[in-house]
């Protein structure tokens, strides 16, 4: 394909937009934890990004997008990005730009997962876990959906990463949370967010970056990208309002609830952004807001300490988004509402397999690391907080 300068410019910009989502999720999470762990939470996001950046150029990109091996994983032909050049081949943008655009997704995904280990993870163990997780969970899932793997061959639709990014990180967060155990004093003492404005700022950066995430996934600067941007924004707004409304039935309309709903809507529309129209996006976003809120309430009732709700928002929202794509697809593809039962079936199946794979592999990986080098900090370290114990720094003086 010949190189398209318009598309190249837009994907360069989108890559930068999506990069900003990683510190965004760090700030979103950072505001939700107790003051003694805020540096740890934001630093984990940066750490994820730096780790995955190196892993991706060395082997991650090749495992995800290298020549297909049995539909499961890519070969190591592009190890160290060898052969990934400045010219366009299959897409109208330089190969190396596509690799960079995909890199920022991989970095963000690991950062979303840190929700499950908030306020109790040992930094050195997380480095090992993170590198293995992105290699064993993210890279295969990216290959299945986008790198010529089995899911794509069977026709499962995932426009910008509902299964690859959100199901994987959400269900991964739940699995590792179950292995690492509850925070000391969970359900006994208050663990109220220490800085809600920080969380709102993080959510704002996520919403902003999501335009690159979804509209960039069109890999074109044209109509499809524009539609993706519009449905993305619409779903976010619908999610924000339904969660706000639902939470106001239980108490006051919460600001954290509103932005959580926006993120739920954004997650829900992610796999569908290139395939649905604006009216469908209102439904997808609104249902995502409500469903993720109910998932959060269920999680609290069950007493699971998946601390910052990556499972409720990204896991459940991603699952809904994948199914909804199979229902509402009407642009370039057809879904259940257009009479395509197969699309609905294959999207649902693909999502459920991703749920199972992400949960089981994460659980086993976390268990192995916990039994060998230990995932969790000591009681004293947890008590004084990870900012001091892991970083030797304090947020405020």
């Amino acid at each position, binding site marked *: 394909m010949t190189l398209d300068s318009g598309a190249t410019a837009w994907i360069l910009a989108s890559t930068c937009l999506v990069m900003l989502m990683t510190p965004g999720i760090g700030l979103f999470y950072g505001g939700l934890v107790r003051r003694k762990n805020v540096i740890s939470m934001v630093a984990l996001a940066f750490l994820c990004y730096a780790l995955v950046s190196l892993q991706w150029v060395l082997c991650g990109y090749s495992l995800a997008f290298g020549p297909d091996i049995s539909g499961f994983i890519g070969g190591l032909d592009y190890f160290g990005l060898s052969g990934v050049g400045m010219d366009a081949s299959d897409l109208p943008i330089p190969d190396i730009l596509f690799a960079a655009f995909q890199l920022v997704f991989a970095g963000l995904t690991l950062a979303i997962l840190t929700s499950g280990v908030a306020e109790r993870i040992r930094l050195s163990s997380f480095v090992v876990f993170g590198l293995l997780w992105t290699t064993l969970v993210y890279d295969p899932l990216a290959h299945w959906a986008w790198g010529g793997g089995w899911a794509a061959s069977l026709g499962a639709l995932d426009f910008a990463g509902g299964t690859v990014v959100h199901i994987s990180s959400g269900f991964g967060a739940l699995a590792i949370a179950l292995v690492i155990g509850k925070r000391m*004093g969970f359900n006994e003492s*208050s663990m109220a967010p220490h800085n809600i404005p920080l969380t709102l700022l993080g959510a704002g950066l996520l919403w902003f970056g999501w335009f690159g995430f979804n509209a960039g996934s069109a890999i074109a600067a044209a109509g499809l990208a524009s539609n993706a941007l519009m449905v993305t924004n619409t779903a976010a707004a619908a999610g924000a309002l339904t969660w706000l409304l639902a939470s106001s039935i239980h108490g006051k309309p919460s600001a954290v609830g509103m932005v959580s709903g926006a993120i739920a809507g954004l997650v829900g529309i992610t796999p569908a952004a290139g395939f649905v129209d604006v009216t469908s996006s209102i439904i997808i976003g609104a249902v995502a807001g409500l469903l993720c809120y109910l998932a959060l309430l269920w999680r609290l009732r069950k007493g699971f300490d998946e601390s910052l709700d990556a499972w409720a928002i990204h896991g459940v929202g991603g699952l809904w988004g994948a199914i909804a794509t199979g229902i509402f697809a009407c642009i370039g593809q057809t879904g259940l509402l257009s009479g395509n039962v197969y699309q609905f079936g294959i999207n649902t199946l693909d999502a459920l397999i991703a749920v199972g794979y992400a949960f089981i592999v994460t659980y086993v990986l976390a268990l192995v690391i916990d039994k060998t080098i230990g995932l969790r900090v000591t009681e004293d370290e947890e008590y004084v907080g990870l900012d001091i114990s892991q970083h030797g720094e304090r947020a405020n003086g």
Partner: protein
Amino acid sequence: MKLIKAIIKPERLDAVKSSLEEAGFLGMTITEVQGRGEQKGISLQYRGGTIEVDLIPKIELEIVVSAEKVSDVIEAVKKGAHTGKIGDGRIFVIPIEESVKIRNGEVIKE
């Protein structure tokens, strides 16, 4: 009239508030403070050396009651704040000369 000043672990505050409520004591003032006891804080051992956390965040509660209720308050604070581990805190009892309600000027001396 006595001032009871209790320094407790921040995560025990909810438990102390409810044990005080159960015993019928509702009024209190709390302050976020930092401090250390005889152990001089906590030191964390690492391969690269030691990190001293010599001032640990605590909550200070102040409760003013008539002299005969002091032991009830102390029991309630102990009940809520006790974990049996180092750093559970201290309770001090200090005499108060008088207390004035700003709204209506009521003066209490006993």
